[in-house]
């Protein structure tokens, strides 16, 4: 857990294998070892380009958040203008339209806690069951789950809307939370993870010791599944936090909007007759919106990194 994951180029395992035989391949060993893999200029350049490609919009966002509406139009996007209005922008974002931004933030948290949390819980239970028990129809379930991973949520949004509308659930938070509870990808991940992470022998030992199925699950399996749980939790959190299309068609009352919809509503004011143009608040709001996600990643990364590498090395 303490060791950070080192990047290895594809040929690194061969190097490691060669090294362990003890053959005195001095030149190769000095230049690159498992700890210091061979460098490829092409890959470095490509990675560099991708880094720039990913970081530039972020830099733009941070810089733009410091500008007033006036400054946004009059200065280059990649450098600061003379007016530093970040604190004013943050203040305005939180107070504009009677502070509805705070409400949207709380809504998003609610959807994430109930939706992503629930999705993770269901994925653990389902993944565990599929990995460790045999029952008729398992292959069919597998086919359905894999199929479901391939269906984009957007394609299901309109049918889901019609269904929820029949049930009278549209325009309520449930219309966002309930569909978020289903995460085929999370289930698949937990399934694969549970297969690797929980030795069947351990479960048998627990049963021989007299533990019931519930106790075996909570006391033996759950701790072993922790890294996978964190990974799934991160994925579902990001998916729910960024969800735009589902709330867009489900919700009409701005009091139930998540941040994505709210910021979009502010943005579209600029395209309306008599609308108030608040691009600076949209940008600052976007910056504020991604901060909790970055925080979640930083706090949870050591758990999920160890999770990602589980099963990759045979002890």
């Amino acid at each position: 857990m303490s060791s950070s994951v080192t990047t290895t180029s594809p040929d690194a395992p061969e190097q490691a294998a060669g090294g362990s035989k003890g053959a005195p391949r001095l030149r190769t060993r000095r230049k690159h070892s498992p700890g210091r893999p061979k460098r490829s200029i092409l890959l470095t350049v490509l990675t560099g380009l991708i880094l720039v490609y990913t970081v530039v919009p972020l830099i733009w966002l941070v810089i733009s958040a410091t500008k007033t509406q006036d400054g946004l139009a009059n200065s280059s996007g990649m450098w600061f203008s003379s007016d530093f209005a970040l604190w004013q922008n943050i203040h305005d974002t939180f107070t504009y339209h009677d502070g509805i931004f705070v409400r949207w933030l709380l809504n998003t948290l609610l959807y994430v806690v109930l939706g992503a949390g629930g999705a993770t819980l269901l994925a653990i239970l389902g993944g565990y069951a599929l990995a460790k028990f045999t029952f008729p129809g398992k292959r069919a379930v597998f086919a359905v789950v894999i199929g479901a991973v391939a269906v984009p949520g957007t394609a299901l949004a309109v049918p889901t809307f019609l269904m929820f509308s029949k049930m009278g659930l549209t325009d309520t938070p449930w219309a966002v939370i309930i569909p978020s509870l289903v995460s085929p990808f999370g289930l698949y991940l937990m399934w694969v993870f549970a297969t690797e992470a929980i030795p069947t022998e351990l479960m048998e030992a627990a049963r021989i010791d007299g533990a019931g199925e519930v106790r075996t699950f909570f006391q033996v399996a759950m701790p072993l599944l922790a890294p996978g749980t964190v990974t799934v939790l991160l994925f579902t959190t990001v998916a729910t936090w960024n969800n735009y299309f589902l709330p867009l068609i489900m919700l009409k009352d701005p009091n139930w909007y998540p941040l994505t919809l709210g910021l979009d509503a502010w943005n579209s004011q600029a395209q309306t007759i008599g609308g108030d143009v608040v691009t600076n608040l949209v940008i600052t709001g976007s910056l504020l919106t991604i901060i909790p996600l970055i925080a979640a990643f930083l706090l949870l990364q050591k758990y999920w990194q160890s999770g990602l590498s589980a099963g990759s090395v045979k002890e």
Partner: protein
Amino acid sequence: MRRTTGRLMRGITLLSVLALGATACGGSDDDSSDQKAVSAADIQAALKKGGTVNVWAWEPTLKSVAANFEKKYPKVKINLVAERSGDKHYTALSNAIAAKKGVPDVAQVEYFALSQYSLTKGLTDLAPYGADKLKAKYTPGPWNAVSDGDKVYGLPMDSGPMAMFYNKKVFDKYKIAVPTTWDEYVEAARKLHKADPKVYIANDAGDAGFTTSLLWEAGSRPYKVDGTKVSINFDDAGAKKYTDTWQKLIDEKLVSPINGWTDDWYKGLGDGTIATLTTGAWMPANFVSGVPQASGQWRAAPMPAWTKGDKASAENGGSSLALPELGKNKELAYAFVEYANAGDGVQTRVDEGAFPATNAQLQDPAFLSKKFDYFDGQEANKIFADSAANVASDWSYLPFQQYANSIFNDTVGKAYVSSTKLSDALKTWQDASIKYGNEQGFTVEK
């Protein structure tokens, strides 16, 4: 990105409209003609009793109006939902009507979209509430847009008589005269672009609302609507005037290919690379909030005429407040709409920068002599009021204008990006609109 979203939204809107149509066909067969008249006493009683009115409207000035209304009638609560606008507003409204759930009591509906909702019986006829007696209060253009025979489907909230806004600093710099006719406009466009290749006289990447306004001004009447019998025909003298002139601007690349309402557009209006903007009289408020850096540089002028001295004008934009059929608290809702659009609310809104549709405000000396700081003290309302008075009132939009506008870029838009002629492109738009109308159960012909 924006275009993708646009297409997506268009798809949803379409779906909702279909659902809406289905509801209207299969739904109630109540005859709205024998609706009982609602007396002023009924409305007063409802106001005394109190209740909540849900209003979906993005017009920013309604906030103060709602606050004043609540002060006047303490038992009434106005729940103003203001975060949706444009396409999304109509998607939400159509969805709510189709689902018969969460329908607002009052909805802001732009003039071009009104007949779509009134025809599917989505809106309450306000005539029995006394709206039919308000005709004299409004200028002819907006009243014509909200009424159909003796039925009234909304009260006009604002209007958008056309005017030309121009960047005086740019025109002064190159010593070019401000155009008063479209021929002079083309001439000015050439001079401007020659003087500085970065400067365009206007942005136009194909905009349905702008095109229909120009056709309206030129005397073209492409849409004729009689119940479900509709005709669409762009083959008249007015349309020819428009295509002949605008084709020159497109061919010589004298209009900047920027879409309206984008970041680039706001930037262009601010830095002088878009020199004029011909649009509705509501624009000053958008200038103030969206283009603050160019304050003092812009002025208003009458819309260029097709023949010198001709004063005919047209409308662009503008919206009404309407009562969806499925809304509740009809008496209260009507009381609020009347207060906002015919009563004391009008002045509140005008004071906050809205452009009225009412004669009283348009003729008020205080209104006419208002000095616009943004236009360096110009009394621009005189130009707008003059334009409002010269709007021909026999224009009609399609009962499916929202759809027609949504396919504008796929049809007429081609004239802006390829060698397709504008006149041919209009024909394509006409054919596509006819096809859609017939599919929707209208009888549409040329």
